[in-house]
């Protein structure tokens, strides 16, 4: 049972936040409201009328719209085309674009969304794309908006813009359901907050009455950890040395430009940056998934620039991928096969050319126990686990086989508070064990809390250094957008 006994009342003209751990049932609840699931019992009322929602189109018809966490836009179409896609206005058999443009501009003006209907979506930044998603939903006549983790991909400045737009929407009498992990933001924007734990609503509170700590404690039902690391473990032994790394893609675009840095054993180097400024390319270059155009990568004393991904992994590089669903897991394979992934060439997973299935299974049991992966068995498919438990399995896997270097890309993205704390602990343990850690994260508190030093990446270049002991998220945010120099 994913939800039981959920009570939720959302008033028109308010922002109602829903918070809860991953796997607490937020998504299930939202899917129910959006008609993707039928509830076994209980009712949904919209404007006082009982509504039976059997499909998203039912929900849209009754004015419920959903903005998904992952944008569902076609990059090679214009904003206008994306917005009308699926509900195109017709004049006879022809599409009535002038009418569509008129309506889009009208909605955009009314809610302050600043839409540019004729620009290709691929040319838009993340914040603007999100506004297109919102526009799309409003265009279909939504009066109740469900936003699923809308701030996960935004920098602080963009978050503020989003919140301005939300205030505009609510003043026009729309009801907004806002799902987020970031409690500070929830407290800033919400009029009411409902906490979900293990599938049930445990409390509805007003933002003025609680602190973010209290809120988090309501979510997990226990005390809350912080991201701060204690005493320094940084040594002066260089583990990863990157010199003058450049990457140019086939079209001649420079993705990485003269990137140099050194990570010592026991050091966490944080990379701050707005997504799409070369972080993914940097990680993929370091892991040997891309061929760099110039520069060298040294692991300890050894030049590994020409090594394959497999050789680098065998040589002690561990990798927590940014997108665990795409890069970190085989979703339709059992956990023990996922334990082997990336480590299929080394014990306990294989002996020579043959797999050691018994060894892999035994070691999966160890990871499940040691890293607190909540699963009934190691034979279930990876897709059956919640995001946090998937990530704990990945961390456990990557930490096995005594790596000397760990690349952690957004290690706590989309995981619940409990798993986040556990993953932070694991990263701290890795650092204490003398690993060199490269941490990339959009969560600036996490970055500041865990890193020994921070570098800011902008358009493929490392443009600034920051000292995590003194820098604030706002200063980092400015440096990330290139607004001012070093923080």
């Amino acid at each position, binding site marked *: *049972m994913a939800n039981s006994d959920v009570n939720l009342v959302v008033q028109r003209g308010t922002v109602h936040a829903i918070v809860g751990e991953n796997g607490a049932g937020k998504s299930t609840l939202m899917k129910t409201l959006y008609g993707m699931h039928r509830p076994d019992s209980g009712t949904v009322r919209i404007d006082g009328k009982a509504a039976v929602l059997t499909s998203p189109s039912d929900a849209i018809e009754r004015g419920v719209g959903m903005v998904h966490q992952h944008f569902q836009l076609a990059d090679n179409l214009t904003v206008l085309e994306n917005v009308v896609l699926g509900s195109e206005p017709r004049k006879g058999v022809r599409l009535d674009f002038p009418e569509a443009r008129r309506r889009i501009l009208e909605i955009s003006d009314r809610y302050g969304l600043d839409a540019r209907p004729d620009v290709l979506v691929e040319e838009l930044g993340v914040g603007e794309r999100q506004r297109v998603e919102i526009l799309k939903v409003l265009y279909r006549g939504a009066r109740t908006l469900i936003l699923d983790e809308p701030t996960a991909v935004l920098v602080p400045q963009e978050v503020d813009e989003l919140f301005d737009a939300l205030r505009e929407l609510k003043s026009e009498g729309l009801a907004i359901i806002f799902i987020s992990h970031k409690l500070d933001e929830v407290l800033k924007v919400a009029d009411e907050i409902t906490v979900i734990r293990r599938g049930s609503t445990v409390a509805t509170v007003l933002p003025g009455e609680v602190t973010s700590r209290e809120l988090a404690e309501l979510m997990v039902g226990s005390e809350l950890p912080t991201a701060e690391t204690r005493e320094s473990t940084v040594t002066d032994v260089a583990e990863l040395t990157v010199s003058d790394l450049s990457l140019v893609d086939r079209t001649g675009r420079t993705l990485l430009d003269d990137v140099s840095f050194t990570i010592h054993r026991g050091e966490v180097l944080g990379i701050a940056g707005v997504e799409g400024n070369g972080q993914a390319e940097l990680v993929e270059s370091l892991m040997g998934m891309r061929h760099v155009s110039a520069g060298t990568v040294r692991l300890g004393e050894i030049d590994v620039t020409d090594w*394959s991904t497999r050789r680098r992994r065998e040589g002690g590089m561990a990798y927590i991928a940014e997108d665990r669903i795409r*890069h970190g897991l*085989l979703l339709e394979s059992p956990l023990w096969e996922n334990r082997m*992934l990336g480590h*299929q060439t080394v014990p306990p997973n294989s002996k020579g050319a043959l797999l050691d299935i018994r060894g892999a299974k035994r070691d999966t049991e160890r990871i499940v126990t040691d890293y607190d992966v909540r*699963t009934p068995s190691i034979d*279930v498919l990876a*897709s*059956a686990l919640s995001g946090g438990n998937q990530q704990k399995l990945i961390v456990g896997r990557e930490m096995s086989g005594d790596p000397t270097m760990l690349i952690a890309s957004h290690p706590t993205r989309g995981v619940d508070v409990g798993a986040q704390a556990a993953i932070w602990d694991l990263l701290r343990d890795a650092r204490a064990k003398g690993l060199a850690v490269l941490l990339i994260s959009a969560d600036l508190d996490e970055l500041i809390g865990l890193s020994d030093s921070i570098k800011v990446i902008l358009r493929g270049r490392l443009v600034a250094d920051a000292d995590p002991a003194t820098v604030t998220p706002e200063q980092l945010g400015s440096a990330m957008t290139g607004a001012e120099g070093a923080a």
Partner: protein
Amino acid sequence: MSGRFDLRRIALAVAAPVLAILFAMLVTSVVLIVSGNDPIVAYVTMFEQLGKPRIQVNILNSATTYYLSAVAVAVGFRMNLFNIGVDGQYRLAAMLAAAFAGTVTLPPVLHVGLTIVVAMMVGAFWAGIAGILRTTRGVSEVISTIMLNFIATGVVAYLLTPGRLAVTTQGSNNIGTAPIPPSGQVPGLSIIPGTTNLVFGLIILAIVIGIAYWFLMGRTRFGFDLRAAGASEPAAVASGVDVKRMIVYAMLLSGAVAGLVGMPQLLGSSYSYGLDFPTGLGFTGIAIALLGRNSPVGIAFAALLWSFLDNSSNSLEFEGVPKQAVLIMQGVIVLSVVIAYEIVRRYRIRIVARDVGRRLAAATSDKEVVA
């Protein structure tokens, strides 16, 4: 893992093909009734064939060929490669292997062994072209293997002329490669009593290939890399699999098995590649690999079923039922099994997730009671 869970998994695995077959029988029945035939008579007639030793031999023999063809296709399917070219690969391989076996003089076992090696190499070469094109030029293997089928037809026609690799058979219009001497033939097995017809000796080769396929996919690092690349290419790349190299290997492997498809017939019955050598087996293999869900055991059942349908269809003519009814049934089985598998797959993911959720909830509430 509880027994109930495993039972359900088996039930789910069997449900899709069984439902597809029942649905196909239903559709075929409707067609038969509409066209004025009695479906019951048709099915009874077909099942009666099962009791005839001669038909039993034929079923095993066709199934042997179908099995090899389907395994060749399945190797590609396992990593999302659609080797539509098994057909061209086996025809070219069989023709060149036949020409080889008909000209060389070798001791018995070696003769057969080398012929098989030649066939595998030709098949691998022909499929490898598609693999190389895919990795170096980005050409979809679907397109290139279809094209290579046509080219194979042309090459076979060119080479299969007198003066090149063919000789005319005395007293017939047929031309073919020089007959393979007894040292290169594989004797049949008389494992079915009550008939003088023999089962292809190379049925053993099909069984060996099935076991090798199972072992390679499930028990070796190579198989794991291949399956990982098929399940999620980005995840495989991140795990250190060289996906381009795996594409070439998978195509070579698929082609090598495809090269074997013609061998049971060539070395066990025709002893020469002529104009009358069976064609189209590569496409049958695609259908059977789909039906058998790329599993070595599943494909075996699917090959036997397909072979039964093929070999019992002739009997329908005696009852005045058009034997094309069997083609309809085969077509509907493939279509509906693809759909049924997808439905079962989604259902399974959902049911497993729900099961995990429920058991975790139960476990936590137990703990709380204790605490």
